[in-house]
């Protein structure tokens, strides 16, 4: 049984180290916060100007002046600080954030990432994604291995406009985990989701990767 969304999020949570400052993208990456292991203390950054994101508020606590980058109402913690968008992206661009976990439409074998635009179809914008992949120390992509048509999303080369060039360090899909020791090196399959076979991964992956289970 391949990982479902929570399974992928739980696997991604194992990449969190004690003391990390982490930025979680919108969608599945947000679920990672629910799977932080005991004894690991992390601080979540929200690029709209907050360090130390707390849980969703109760009805009584809802505050329109307090939202995350997904525009969801949230709460603060005892460690929380607020700052401007310029300071926020100073943290991001300046390499002060340890880890970012993002969704993707496509990842290429050289680490290229596309997750913001489908030409002619969608006009939404890149938000902070390009800044995050350019500045954060380690980039993990959480995505379904294939698209709705069953085609690989882990490709030889991205077909969609890029968010960043050669920026991805780890790909966690419903089928397994691909990691590379350093940018510029090839990805290695280091872990399979339960009951997933090497053959299934090979059949559903266009990108070149090494096997290092």
């Amino acid at each position, binding site marked *: 049984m391949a990982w479902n969304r929570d399974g992928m999020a739980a696997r991604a949570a194992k990449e969190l180290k004690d003391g990390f400052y982490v930025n979680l993208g919108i969608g599945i990456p947000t679920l990672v916060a629910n799977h932080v292991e005991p004894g690991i203390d992390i601080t979540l950054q929200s690029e*709209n100007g907050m360090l130390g994101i707390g849980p969703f508020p109760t009805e009584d606590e809802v505050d*329109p002046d*307090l939202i995350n980058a997904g*525009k969801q109402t949230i709460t603060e913690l005892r460690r929380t600080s607020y700052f401007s968008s310029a300071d926020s992206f100073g943290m991001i*661009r300046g390499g002060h954030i340890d880890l970012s976990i993002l969704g993707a439409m496509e990842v290429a074998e050289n680490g290229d990432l596309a997750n913001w635009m489908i030409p002619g179809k969608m006009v939404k*914008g890149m938000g902070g994604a*390009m*800044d995050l992949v350019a500045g954060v120390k380690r980039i993990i992509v959480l995505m379904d291995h294939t698209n709705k048509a069953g085609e690989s999303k882990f490709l030889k080369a991205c077909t969609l406009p890029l968010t*960043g*060039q050669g920026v991805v360090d780890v790909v966690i899909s419903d089928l397994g985990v691909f990691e590379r020791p350093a940018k510029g090196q090839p990805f290695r399959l280091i872990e399979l989701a339960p009951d997933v076979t090497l053959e299934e991964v090979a059949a559903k992956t266009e990108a070149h990767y090494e096997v290092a289970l």
Partner: protein
Amino acid sequence: MANKLYDDAVSALEGLLFDGMTVMSGGFGLCGIPENLITALRDSGTKGLTFISNNAGVDDFGLGLLLKTHQVAKMISSYVGENKEFERQYLSGELQLEFNPQGTLAERIRAGGAGIPGFYTKTGVGTLVAEGKEHKEFGGETYILETGLVADVSIVKAWKADPYGNLVFRKTARNFNPMMATAGKVTVAEVEELVGPGEIDPDHIHTPGIFVQRLFVGKNYEKRIEQRTVRQAA
């Protein structure tokens, strides 16, 4: 001291507006947007606006109000996904759009207000954003040149102000407001509360009054929430 206090949004904008002008507007999503000033700008009928704002509001609130009336000719933004009318006008060619990565947008505004005409950043290298921009290597890494942004008028929203225009923002409603306050030839601030001189601890001022030329207390704040997410009380 020059008087910075005005009665309302209409009087605070008087004499500042003209067709084809560039306006910066603070806010992230609908959080920390200058609600009163956006409404007054709509009612003024000023057209052909270039609008610099991280987002474009929703169809019936925030900057969506100015899109509905076709007052905006061009948007400079990072994310406009919550506005269907925006998407329609863009795809039909009625509206020009310049997408900036959010951090690049924030830094362009900060730079503009600080008298810095350009800066190099890694963000966007190898993407559509880098096309046509100067590339330069520093320490073996490639960066692109981005330019500073300024506006004819900046409209911002703060929580508290004193009569000198010193501003304090609240929680994540701060976002783009402080940089935009620095980057307007004229900056107009609307606030929830006006306090007396000396009532804000000088160490707690987020935006010094030098950046704010006009100021008023806003009315009827709706503070609409885009994604109301709650948990059960224990």
